[in-house]
């Protein structure tokens, strides 16, 4: 059975019409023992049916160990969104991007297709001064209306800077990780395991934290 109903399919078609470049979704799954692995894979495949610029490549976490290592995939389900020429901007989704996070997946696809982060000129300038790699983890739940703001901002920063990788993490699918980072409210953002905060911040504040994490 299709995950996306007709109405949503129409909206998605509209959102993804005229993508300026090719996008590849690398889906990491496993046959068994993963909540939402099957759904994540179907979701990616249904999206590729709605746009001829989207290609899907499915990998088994263990079977494609080498590929998983290249992209830093240590848990499943996972989606890596690659741009034109398989360019890796550092956009990752761990757990199924359903509910409110579906819009984050669509935004990530649009961003990877254009290569444009859409950040303000000030934020772009600030990120150009980033010195060290920053790994952003944004913990979310699928029923949280404020979470996509944090996820999308993190992904924008990843597109803007080669040094940034940004993961959406659906907290209820990875309880151990959520526990380790003390996730009791979402969105919760963790940067390089050093800096962390709750809530969807405006762009400037978010970038300031990012620079602190990368200093």
């Amino acid at each position, binding site marked *: 059975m299709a*995950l996306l109903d007709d109405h949503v399919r129409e909206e998605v078609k509209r959102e993804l019409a005229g993508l300026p470049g090719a996008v590849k979704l690398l889906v990491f799954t496993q046959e068994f023992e993963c909540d939402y692995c099957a759904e994540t894979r179907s979701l990616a495949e249904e999206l590729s049916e709605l746009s001829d610029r989207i290609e899907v490549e499915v990998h088994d976490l263990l079977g494609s160990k080498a590929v998983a290592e290249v992209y830093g995939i240590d848990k499943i389900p996972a989606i890596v969104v690659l741009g034109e020429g398989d360019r890796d901007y550092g956009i990752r989704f761990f757990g199924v991007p359903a509910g409110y996070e579906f819009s984050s997946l669509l935004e990530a696809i649009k961003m990877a297709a254009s290569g444009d982060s859409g950040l303000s000129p000030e934020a772009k300038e600030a990120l150009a001064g980033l010195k060290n790699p920053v790994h952003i983890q944004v913990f979310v739940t699928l029923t*949280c209306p404020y979470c996509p703001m944090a996820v999308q901002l993190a992904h924008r920063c990843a597109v803007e800077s080669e040094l940034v990788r940004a993961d959406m993490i659906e907290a209820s699918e990875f309880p151990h990780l959520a526990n380790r980072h003390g996730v009791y409210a979402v969105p919760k953002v963790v940067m390089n395991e050093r800096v962390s905060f709750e809530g969807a911040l405006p762009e400037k*504040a978010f970038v300031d934290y990012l620079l602190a994490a990368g200093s």
Partner: protein
Amino acid sequence: MAELKFLVAPEIGKALKEDHPYDLVIVGAGPAGLTAAVYAARKKLDTLLISKDIGGQTLLTSDIENYMGYHYISGKELAAKFEEQVKKYPIDIAVGEEVVSLSKEGDDFLLTTAGGKRVVARSVIVATGKRSRPLNVPGERELVGRGVSYCAVCDAPLFAGKDVVVIGAGNSGATAVVDLIKIANRIYVVDIMPGWRADPVLVERIAAAGEKVETFFAHEVVRILGDERVEGIVIRPRGGGEEVELKVQGVFIEIGLIPNSDLAKGFLELNEAGEIVVDCRCRTSVPGVFAAGDVTDVPEKQVIIAAGEGAKAALSAYAYLIGQRR
């Protein structure tokens, strides 16, 4: 496993034009602001809709059964439909922005955002709605995000198998309990009043969960315990008596709402509840500034009322701008 839903939601961070005098800036994109946007766009006003999110409180509502035209619709779906209708029109929409101040600048109004952006408007509609009221007890502020939550819909999934307390036995509190029954291990409910003030349908659903839910009515919260994270809560019977300590990992506060009128403080007249005072044409104490929906002193806070007020505010703003041109 829960049934999956897929929401195609707002584009975030779409550019707004700085230092460009808009005919109308609408602050807040709940039912009031979204409806105002449609009316303003149809009058061909050069409009900016600026808001932290699209949908406002409807995003936090599981089901709405009293908005005309729909027997039943989830808050998210209704917000998505409102948004779709607004997006049919070529107005500027800036989501993810918080307006922190509103003032007069010459003949125009100046709005500034938390990120330092400046927006100029010839007229303004404040439709910023309401947000959760804090308890104001020791431990609460320190433990926000460490187990204290004001968004049950958002955070409930993080408390799988845990013991939690819901403060407030009105409709929002009861809805939080219903959501948590499927997730948490044990749920305590604390309210200062002697019983439920929620719709009977919700109370019946909670009763069906049996011993999983334990109520402490006519109790007040003394303090929330914990250093790094919530470890418990201390309550006591109203009017005196022994304190009771409950061991919980989560505290969901659902004790009503306060108006988001901070940006208008000292500029617009507010009533003692902090609501913006408006007349029947949504006019505030400052000509050219209008207000609509839950943030105003209009009685009854409902989607349909906020939407109607939003329409009225946009038409009043239009009349005001026409008057200015003469």
